[in-house]
């Protein structure tokens, strides 16, 4: 397999863009990426397009990728439409990586795009539930519930087990809202206090509104090619994909003793990249509910069980810390347009690694970074999909 580099990234801002269709959002991300890479549409050999809700929310099924690429002037090439809940864009990147790593293509485009504001938020919420197993969504189960009480994370249970408080749950939201306030592409740019987060409306006990990612439109893209081909396109620092891991969840039986799938997928990514958690200089992770960040700290190997809040208290994961987490603002502040999120994370990491992140630039440019995603709940008591990508300069 060839070593693969990301030579261009780009994004559409996240937020509410009432007048814009899927293809308008994607166009901005795609052409920002082409321009960033110094590439033309004719350079692209193959494209992977991730989207999750376009069929239910916009009426466009089946060929969403071809529709958005045609609008951006890219036609005739192989287009693979991929869908993997909140990891759809991560799946698109993995596809592009495999095309180039294998030699099937020299230059591959990965796009993630989502249009969630369609004038009826009840419809959007229902569509979001449909990315979990329909047997569960039919019974009224929502993502928020699953974070609150689902056996695999059970944040409410962690309050008893770890002694975590509502203020602890608010800490990642507060940290990330500060990061997001520095990000011109972010949906929510207001820095929040612990009090504001704790006192916002309860959505599902113990989660409050400001702990939850909101509805969002957005798009992001990346172009990859063999490392040695990168200078043909751009003089910018090529960012290598050290590992790009995708896993589905296990069927969990109570007390089966299985390691959590977020841990399993992260360990696979570390192993493939030949690094460990201590080598990471920055992380973008899946804080669809902000307190999940605390759980992910331990599952990604950053701390021992229950020590999550300490990492924020001691400033370790803040923007100026040893290993900044969610410098973009994360899902709650930067925004979580479901099918775009994985590539929004990648774009942020590439900007940070190049030193192009503006006001939120990590002072010491990160050399090794991780993007982490998960999504979709199954009857088997696990998330459907886990994606972990490790980047290196």
């Amino acid at each position: 397999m060839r070593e693969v580099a990301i030579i261009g990234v780009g994004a559409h801002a996240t937020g509410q863009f009432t007048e814009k269709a899927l293809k308008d959002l994607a166009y901005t991300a795609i052409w920002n990426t082409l321009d960033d890479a110094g590439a033309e549409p004719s350079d692209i050999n193959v494209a992977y397009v991730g989207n999750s809700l376009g069929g239910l929310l916009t009426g466009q099924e089946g060929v969403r990728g071809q529709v958005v690429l045609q609008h951006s002037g890219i036609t005739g090439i192989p287009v693979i439409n991929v869908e993997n809940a909140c990891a759809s864009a991560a799946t698109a990147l993995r596809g592009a990586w495999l095309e180039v790593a294998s030699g099937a293509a020299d230059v591959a485009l990965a796009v993630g795009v989502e249009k969630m504001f369609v004038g009826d938020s009840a419809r959007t919420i229902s569509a979001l539930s449909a990315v979990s197993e329909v047997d569960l969504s039919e019974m009224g189960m929502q993502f928020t519930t699953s974070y609150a009480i689902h056996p695999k994370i059970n944040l409410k249970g962690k309050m008893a087990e770890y002694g975590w408080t509502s203020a602890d749950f608010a800490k990642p939201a507060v940290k990330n809202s500060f990061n997001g306030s520095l990000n011109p592409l972010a949906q929510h740019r207001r820095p929040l206090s612990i009090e504001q987060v704790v006192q916002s409306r309860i959505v599902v006990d113990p989660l409050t509104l400001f702990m939850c990612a909101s509805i969002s439109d957005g798009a992001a893209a990346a172009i990859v090619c063999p490392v040695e081909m990168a200078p043909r396109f751009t003089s910018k620092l090529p960012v290598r994909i050290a590992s790009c891991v995708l896993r589905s969840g296990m069927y969990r039986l109570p007390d089966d003793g299985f390691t959590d799938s977020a841990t399993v997928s992260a360990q696979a990514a570390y192993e493939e990249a030949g690094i460990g958690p201590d080598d990471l200089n920055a992380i973008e992770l899946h804080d669809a509910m902000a307190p999940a960040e605390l759980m992910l700290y331990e599952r990604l190997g950053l701390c021992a069980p229950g020590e999550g809040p300490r990492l924020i208290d001691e400033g370790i994961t803040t923007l100026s810390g040893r290993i900044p987490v969610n410098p973009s603002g994360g899902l709650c502040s930067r925004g979580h347009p479901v099918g775009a999120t994985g590539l929004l994370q990648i774009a942020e990491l590439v900007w940070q690694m190049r030193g192009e992140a503006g006001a939120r630039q990590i002072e010491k440019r990160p050399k090794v970074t991780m993007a982490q995603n998960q999504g979709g709940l199954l009857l088997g008591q696990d998330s459907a999909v886990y994606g972990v990508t490790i980047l290196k300069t």
Partner: protein
Amino acid sequence: MNILHPSSIFVPTDAKQTPCLLGARCDECATVVFPKMPVCPACQTNGSMREVQIGRTGKLFSHTIARFAPKGFVAPFFQVFVDLPEGPRIFALVGAECPVEAGVLEDGMDMRLVLEPLADTPENSDLLTYKYVPAGRPEQRTSGHA
């Protein structure tokens, strides 16, 4: 009344029967799952799963009150996970007889299955499903088979 997941629920047809869930048990390794599956998730055997009646009772594993409802539901409402004595840990809603208030449910408490409409909304009031209520609550007649 229609049944939400008919292959997952045993609905009594006479007064001597009690409702329960229909799971599956593996002939090879005795794993019990809910809902039924044709392949054992523990030992991956195909065709080893036999239907079993389960879930008449359970223990509350976790619970929360959802303050916002998806389409077809009414907030606030309880959402819970219940550990069945036969093995599975399942997602469930809580019977209407149980007031939706903090302190009413407690993790670890004994629960008992009831059948009732999915939600008191136009979309779901004619759709029968399983729910759980604290076992200590006085038994009521559950909705019959329509």
